[in-house]
């Protein structure tokens, strides 16, 4: 199946249509997404800071991981479901959006980074479980994890700024000159609502 047709069929599903037609459902889904990602980021950061030897240094890593990671995964599932629902409402636009694509790439990198931890420091936890920080490989993946997840937050926020209907259908500047339309359209300006230089 070709991609454009697939995106169109996602957009035309009953659930996507239902969300688009309501003015309440999308904000509710987006709020749930923010709640989920706050939990994902916060709990991952607690683990990363433990690995780096910055906080919770007295605690057993194993104990912390078994306390926390189930909540991380539950919250991640929530963000995946709400994210997929938001995607479905405007699949074609999100699919072609630079920030969306980069965010998906960063999520893959986060997965690879997690795998890298499991294959290195994750194999020797019994040796450093009670030490104040993980071995170098563990600290490196923890540091990368913080960078990757922070960038995922930023990229996600940029998606909202570059795909919303407000951004696509920005209202014309108040002093738009209809007699000389092309002169009054802002050119090469990075701020969408900026007033034109020329009138």
């Amino acid at each position, binding site marked *: 199946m070709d991609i454009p047709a697939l995106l169109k069929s996602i957009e035309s599903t009953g659930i996507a249509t239902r969300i688009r037609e309501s*003015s*309440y459902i*999308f*904000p*509710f889904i*987006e*709020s*749930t997404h*923010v*709640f989920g*990602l*706050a*939990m*994902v*980021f*916060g*709990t991952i*950061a*607690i683990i990363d800071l433990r690995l780096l030897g910055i*906080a*919770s240094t007295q*605690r*057993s890593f194993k*104990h912390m991981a078994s*306390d*926390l990671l189930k*909540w991380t995964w539950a919250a991640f599932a929530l963000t995946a479901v709400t994210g997929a629902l938001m995607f479905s409402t405007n699949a074609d636009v999100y699919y072609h959006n630079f920030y969306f694509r980069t965010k998906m790439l960063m999520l893959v990198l986060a997965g690879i980074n997690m795998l890298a931890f499991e294959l290195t420091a994750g194999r020797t936890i019994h040796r450093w479980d009670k030490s104040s920080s993980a071995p170098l490989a563990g600290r490196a993946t923890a540091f990368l994890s913080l960078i990757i997840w*922070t960038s995922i*937050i*930023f990229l996600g*926020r*940029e998606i909202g*700024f570059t795909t919303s209907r407000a951004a696509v259908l920005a209202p014309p500047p108040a002093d738009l000159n209809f007699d000389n339309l092309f002169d009054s359209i802002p050119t090469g300006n*990075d*701020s*969408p*609502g*900026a007033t034109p230089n020329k009138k």
Partner: protein
Amino acid sequence: MNQFADWLSTTYPSVFIQNHNGWAIPIIQSIHIVGIGVVLSSVFMIDLRILELGGMDQTLRQTTNRFGPWLTGALCVLLATGILMVIGEPVRELITISFWLKMSLIVIGTAIAGVFRITLRKHEQRWEEKLVKSKSIKWLAVFTFLIWVGIIVLGRLIAYDKVWGSWSPATK
């Protein structure tokens, strides 16, 4: 408030943020979300300990000593980035019911956290031995977490204040 918002939007810092809208607002909002993650997970960790669902290798005091300062620090970051957002987009923020409901819940959430830390410091033994096991404290922990979740939802709803219908000043 309308007049104040209009005036604020003409001041130099506000104009600066408006003119650098392409990166300023997304970056400030991203830092704000990172702060939200720290606040929510810190409250969550203390609540888990009270509910005896996690951190049982630590005393309540150890748990609040670990997460309390991060909670306070992140709240300061949220206040600073929040003020910048209000300066950058005064009308969008101040002329909404979501914003003011959010501020009210923040006052309640912060007050609960403050009172909790003070009483824990004063009556440490009583908290560790009795209070932490009491039903009402456990319910308070759940309630507190829900307040912070509500704060997050209201924060997002500032952008969609019209969901409040005629209650929202943005629709007038």
